[in-house]
């Protein structure tokens, strides 16, 4: 990355057995985009990590109290990335700040521009059948929305999100009363590639080839300007680079009135999402979630 002029030119990757025998150690180089001290996390736009993942932007837990205190959005850093438990658990430690000049131009991170109870924006998007939709089209149902792109290669990101939504869909099929009062919506950041036919094909894979499932789960994309508006409204981060889209992991729940009921960022369980969706379908009153 061009602006990381102070960084070492080569990436040193150390893969060791670790003290617990299951830890792998990598070197992460990147720029800090956001810092959440309360959650003990920083979001880093980082370079390729050979043997682990391609360049992308993602949040990392930090096990380095001093580093967490010192690092600021805009900083270029080098840190040790520890992956444990088969890659399911990972964190940063030994954070070294290599360039602080980015702090001056770092944009303040604004999460969730719309507050709980605010109506969802009236922005058009196009579903897997080429039909133009708005969030208001789902009024009368509680709506769980997530954000992906179909070419996302990271199993812990978009494939996981779509798999979780597939599980929720399958569960709701078993309870018609809740099925009729709920809706799932998967919105793609990548309107250029994720056209209606691509989204239909992608959706069918998660619907076990049952196209009738689209009446309960839409897969859609919006024009870039419209998607940016949606992202700003819901406080999503995303940008495209080298045909890959780096994005935050977010889920939004709408009330049957089309208002924001709850946000999740980075952390949730499928059971938690499903329970909230079902509960919201039975209530018209928005509430602030535990991570909202």
């Amino acid at each position, binding site marked *: 990355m061009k602006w990381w002029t102070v960084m070492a030119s080569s990436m040193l990757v150390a893969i060791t057995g670790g003290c617990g025998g299951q830890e792998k150690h990598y070197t992460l180089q990147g720029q800090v985009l956001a810092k959440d001290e309360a959650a003990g996390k920083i979001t880093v736009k980082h370079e390729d990590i050979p043997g682990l993942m391609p360049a992308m932007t993602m949040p990392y837990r930090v096990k380095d109290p001093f580093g967490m205190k010192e690092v600021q959005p805009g900083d270029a850093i080098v840190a040790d990335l520890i992956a444990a438990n088969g890659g399911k658990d990972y964190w940063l430690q030994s954070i070294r700040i290599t360039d602080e000049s980015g702090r001056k131009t770092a944009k303040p991170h604004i999460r969730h521009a719309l507050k709980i109870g605010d109506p969802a924006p009236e922005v058009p998007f196009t579903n897997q059948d080429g039909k133009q939709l708005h969030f208001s089209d789902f009024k009368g149902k509680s709506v769980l929305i997530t954000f992906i792109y179909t*070419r996302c290669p990271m*199993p812990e990101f978009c*494939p996981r999100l779509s798999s979780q939504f597939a599980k929720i869909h399958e569960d709701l099929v078993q309870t018609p009363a809740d099925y009729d009062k709920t809706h799932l919506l998967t919105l793609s950041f990548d309107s250029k590639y994720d056209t209606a036919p691509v989204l239909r094909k992608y959706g069918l894979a998660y619907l076990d080839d049952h196209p009738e499932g689209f009446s309960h789960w839409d897969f859609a994309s919006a024009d870039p300007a419209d998607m940016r508006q949606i992202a700003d409204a819901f406080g999503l981060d995303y940008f495209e680079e080298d045909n890959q889209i780096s994005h935050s992991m977010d889920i939004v729940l709408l009330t049957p009135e089309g208002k924001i009921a709850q946000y999740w960022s980075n952390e949730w369980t499928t059971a938690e999402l499903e329970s909230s969706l079902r509960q919201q379908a039975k209530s018209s009153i928005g509430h602030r979630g535990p991570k909202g």
Partner: protein
Amino acid sequence: MKGLAGSTAIAFCLAAGTCGLAGCGSADHGEELYDLHCAACHETSNPDLKKQPPKLEGLFRAKTLPSGAPATDEQVRNTIIEGLRTMPAFQGRLSVTDVNDLIQYLHTLK
């Protein structure tokens, strides 16, 4: 990760990016691409995923791919570029050379 198969001569040809018995490409570069783009799904169990991606050892030794399609370079190339079912497409993110190198490396997985 996986060792190169075949004789030293073949291994040299593959590493040099020339055409070997199984096609054209650099298996060394293919291995780097595999570790970067494929291993996270195909080498690791991901219980959260709707479908577990198949292991790719012996991919070209069987007559058919896990999908049931013929185990040919062309079929694997199409799968990498266009994706298949829940596997993401790599169109626009891997060059023609990258895909050739990746296929060359997949041929070495026994």
